[in-house]
């Protein structure tokens, strides 16, 4: 390591070289230049009584410490149907995890823990999946074949997820673009992870087996914003079916991103669609950075097949143990290993993501594959070095390093060293090739971290425990007849109703259009008022108050009915809604009372206005007629609400204002 190298400077320099800009200043052509391509896999739980392959109830969750029994499993890779091993499977086998499942009898039977073959597929779930597959305009398969998709991380005790394709080749239409759908599949949800530390991973099995649909799009999305819009569209479409669960954890997205010359990378477990733009933006630049690193290494290393790392177990130095992670490692009897990466100078501090560099790519794999928790290494290009240069130089000497090399030091128990060293060497070698096929975990800050090697088609295997299920023409026809209006039409309907566009999201997300249709038809309510009441007023209330346990959107229909029965003006509902939302069981009179409704004789409005005008005049706040108008409206609104519409009130106020104009004041 030569002294003239400044990692912080190199990081800044390479960030510029990559051309990284923040998302808010990026424009569509930023992504066009990168060759940005993105596809989505949208997962959505179905609202069924029972799980997909057993009779356990779906949708009940327990506290992680509330369990009846624990059991332990290990996973081994197996061959695919086509006779090959899957890369992910082999990687996960290397990690040698003890997987513990916490089971609760209420939500788990012998099926979930793989001690009983699957029962017949849940028909309710299958019908819902067909329904949504039809809404996506996919081609419905003739026969459902349950397939096993291997997951060796333990998230499913069998080591595979049972999944089946319901339809292929559909489409959705965004504002300005048609997005093709690859498939809709029906599958079982996985366990919830409780913890994952070193070689011990713990899962809860309550969520395991809940029916889930996965909608997969082609990589037709060309900007991060488009990816978000497609995500929202699919979510709204799912919800408009009325067949899906809502609430935390009921929907998740995996986002596939690639750029020109890059590779498909899957960002897994994006729980909020609003995070998609930032994540995909950063991933695109990470790929760009990795491609530049590839070029750099290709220039430097002419015979990549001969390239190899050198490593040695080294002694703990006095200054090592001032660094807590290393001191802890020493106390546990772990080993300290120094690794030389030939010709990697400037690579470890090469920008990859905001605040991250190539060294984090190695560190991420050390955590997942070698089970070494963060922080798990230090290196010669740390922007905030833990040790002084002298120690670094001493170690470089031990390793026989040259000036153009980079070094890292990691700490691990003896039995994990081999895997760790292999992991480091493998990640470095992958850098010669560009962007590795990876599944990456979404982080809250918009960055991603290594999760596993991206699985391929080789992890699929027919489920020998279940027979194919024919999907008959009559069933499809029956379901097709009951389909809800499709989402494009729903959006057109809102536009037709002249609902302000900022209200769309909330209305579609909660599938309120059918409710609106009923209210408009049955009570002859003005659509703009209703749209704003729901898409703006109710959204605000929901964000600021907690709903009473019996509240549901349908109860709003009954509010309108009661208002009609009492012959009140429907605008009173904006006053009643916050109270009703919190206390849905309150009887109507108490509701009116709490909301501050008073019976008001409309005939005395002109008299009141003239009195108010007098008061306003005395207050001498302003002489402007508009100010007077606003003030009078403000005084009268709460009193008259429900007795007369505000537009009528406004008309009367204006009339009264012009009638009694006092010329002297104007």
């Amino acid at each position, binding site marked *: 390591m030569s002294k003239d190298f400044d990692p912080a400077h190199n990081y800044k320099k390479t960030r510029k070289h990559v051309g990284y800009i923040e998302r808010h200043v990026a424009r569509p052509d930023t992504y066009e230049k990168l060759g940005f391509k993105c596809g989505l896999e949208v997962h959505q739980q179905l609202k069924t009584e029972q799980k997909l392959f057993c009779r356990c109830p779906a949708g009940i969750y327990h506290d992680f410490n509330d369990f*009846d*029994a*624990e*059991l*332990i*499993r*290990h*996973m*081994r*890779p*197996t*061959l*695919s*149907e*086509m*006779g090959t*091993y899957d890369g992910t*499977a082999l990687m996960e086998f290397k990690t040698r995890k003890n997987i*513990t499942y916490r*089971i609760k009898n209420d939500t788990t039977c*012998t099926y979930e*823990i*793989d*001690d*009983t073959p699957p029962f017949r597929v849940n028909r309710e779930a299958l019908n819902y999946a067909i329904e949504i597959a039809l809404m996506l305009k*996919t*081609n*419905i*398969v*003739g*026969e*459902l*074949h349950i*397939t*096993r*998709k*291997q997951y060796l991380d333990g998230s499913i005790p*069998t*080591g*595979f997820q049972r999944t*089946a*394709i319901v339809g*292929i*080749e559909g489409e959705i239409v965004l504002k300005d673009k048609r997005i093709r759908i*690859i*498939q809709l599949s029906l599958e079982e949800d996985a366990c919830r992870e409780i913890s994952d530390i070193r070689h011990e991973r713990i899962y809860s099995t309550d969520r395991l087996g809940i029916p889930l649909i996965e909608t997969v799009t082609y990589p037709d999305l060309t900007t991060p914003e488009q990816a978000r819009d497609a995500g929202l569209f699919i979510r709204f479409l799912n919800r408009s079916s009325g067949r899906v669960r809502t609430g935390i954890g009921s929907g998740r997205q995996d986002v596939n991103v690639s750029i020109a010359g890059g590779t498909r990378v899957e960002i897994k477990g994006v729980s909020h669609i609003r995070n998609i733009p930032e994540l995909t933006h950063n991933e695109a630049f990470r790929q760009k950075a990795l491609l530049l690193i590839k070029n750099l290494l290709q220039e430097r290393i002419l015979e990549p097949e001969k390239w190899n790392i050198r490593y040695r177990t080294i002694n703990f130095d006095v200054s090592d143990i001032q660094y807590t992670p290393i001191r802890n490692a020493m106390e546990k009897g772990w080993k300290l290993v120094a690794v030389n990466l030939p010709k990697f100078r400037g690579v470890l501090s090469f920008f990859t993501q905001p605040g991250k560099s190539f060294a984090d790519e190695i560190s991420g794999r050390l955590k997942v594959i070698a089970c070494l928790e963060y922080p798990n290494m230090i290196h010669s290009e740390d922007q905030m070095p833990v040790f002084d240069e002298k120690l670094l130089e001493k170690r470089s000497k031990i390793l026989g390093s040259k000036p153009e090399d980079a070094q890292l030091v990691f700490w691990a128990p003896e039995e994990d060293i081999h895997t760790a060293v292999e992991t480091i060497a493998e990640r470095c070698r992958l850098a010669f090739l560009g962007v590795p096929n990876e599944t990456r975990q979404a982080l809250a800050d918009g960055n991603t971290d290594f999760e596993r090697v991206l699985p391929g*088609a*080789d*992890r*699929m*295997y*027919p489920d*020998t425990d279940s*027979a*194919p299920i*024919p*999907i*008959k*023409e009559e069933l*499809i026809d029956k379901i097709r007849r009951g389909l809800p209006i499709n989402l494009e039409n729903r959006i057109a309907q809102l536009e037709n109703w002249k609902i302000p566009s900022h209200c769309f999201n909330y209305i579609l997300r909660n599938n309120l259009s059918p409710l609106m249709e009923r209210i408009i038809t049955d009570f002859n309510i003005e659509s703009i008022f209703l749209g704003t009441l729901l898409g703006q007023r109710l959204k605000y209330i929901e964000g600021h108050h907690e709903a009473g346990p019996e509240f549901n959107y349908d109860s709003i229909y009954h509010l309108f009915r009661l208002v009609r029965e009492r012959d009140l003006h429907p605008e009173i509902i904006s006053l009643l809604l916050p109270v009703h939302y919190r206390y849905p069981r309150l009887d109507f009179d108490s509701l009116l009372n709490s909301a501050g409704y008073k019976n008001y004789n409309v005939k005395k409005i002109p008299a009141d206005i003239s009195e108010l005008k007098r008061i306003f005049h005395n207050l001498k706040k302003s002489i402007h007629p508009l100010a007077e108008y606003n003030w009078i409206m403000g005084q009268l609104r709460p009193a008259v609400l429900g007795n007369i519409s505000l537009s009528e009130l406004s008309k009367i106020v204006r009339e009264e204002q012009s009638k009694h104009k006092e010329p002297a004041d104007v």
Partner: protein
Amino acid sequence: MSDIFKGYRGSALDILKKFKVRVWSDAVIDTTRGKFSGIILPRSENDDDQHIVLKLSNGYNIGLDINTIENMREIGYREAHYKIPEKDFPTDKGKAKVKLFGTGGTIASRLDYRTGAVIPAFSPGELYGAVPELAEICNLETEKLFAVFSENMGPREYMKLATAIGKEIEKGVDGIVIGHGTDTLHHTAAALSFMIRNSPVPIVLVGSQRSSDRPSSDAALNLIHATTTAARSDIAEVMVCMFGPTSDEYGLLHQGTRVRKMHSSYRSTFRTIGDVPLAMVTRNEIKPLRHDYNRRRKDRQVEIFPFFEEKVAMLYYYPNMLPDMIYSLIENEYKGIVIAGTGLGHVNKPLYPALRKCQELGIPVYMTVQTLWGYVHMFVYDTGRDLMSMGVIPAENMLPEVAYVKLGWALGQTKDLQKVKEIMLKPICRDITPKEPYNGYLVYQGGIPEVEEFIRKVHK
């Protein structure tokens, strides 16, 4: 039928022929439900003839209804060759020599396109490819004797297996492992317990409850436990080695004559009945739970008794059983009958004449209990005494399946009913035990607070 349409028949076959599309071809298919493309897979013979199976490029399989197919064309061909990577099994002079006999079952298996289920696959190289840990335990040799599901194992297979094991022992092997389907594993274990006498080495039967084509299969760990036992343990008995709990934690070694499959699908399905298991086994250790077993010896003085009378039957008694059940056995010239009776070993009165007929004709009838746990006690009630007066012989606490196997084995050796009786009632390898330990019967009742607390603490 031509092999290029594997598994297809009837209308589905006609469609493939009509459009000249072979199995394993990469095909594009137009249907009334849209266009599909992928590789045509073989179809299971038991499935209907109304669908064609397609593997999509993403690895998923789907079926297409032939009534929706408008056109099909081949655009390529890609036949799958399912093969476990085979590697030479490394040998190490310092390690014990273990012989693994294959009989079939799911200990090693692969997909069968004909039935859509799994079929056994087996070779040392394949096993090493799948479970490399085996090389750290022993020097392994394998021999495939049969490739049958365990329900197809029978007397002929028992005798062939016993003889083959005898030869291996004489050749100097340090331990025997037998891969076997689990359904009748305990029948074979009992047969080998009787047929192989005085073995100087461990003989371990092993299977798996989850086929080895699954990542969470118990096959690998069972095999590791079994080879560890065969190579290192000093228990020279015929044993069944299977999971203790359903967790991947330890295996149990069950005496071949006291073990039974007790759950249709659980991993920890095998239980020792009326006794405690011989030992617990992990990757590193064999921990005996009993100490009265036969020890490993250096000599090769094994004796093989490969005999079996096939015309032996077992009757599982139920209330209102009619005597014709027994008459039909007599008519069909059965040579011996084992009854699994109720309670202490009873059947109803209508069977009496038929039982008397057996006595007259010299067909031995042995009584066992369908409670599985406990002894036959035929002096307690009159029924028992009546039955004994009709020549029904109580078989102590022999498990019904074990009594069945033993009677076949005894009748295979002699027609002399007195000698048969001597063989039957003389304990050979804990098939009959002189007493039942207090912890020989443990069936905990889930739901009881203290049991729930116990379950919560230990791994299931």
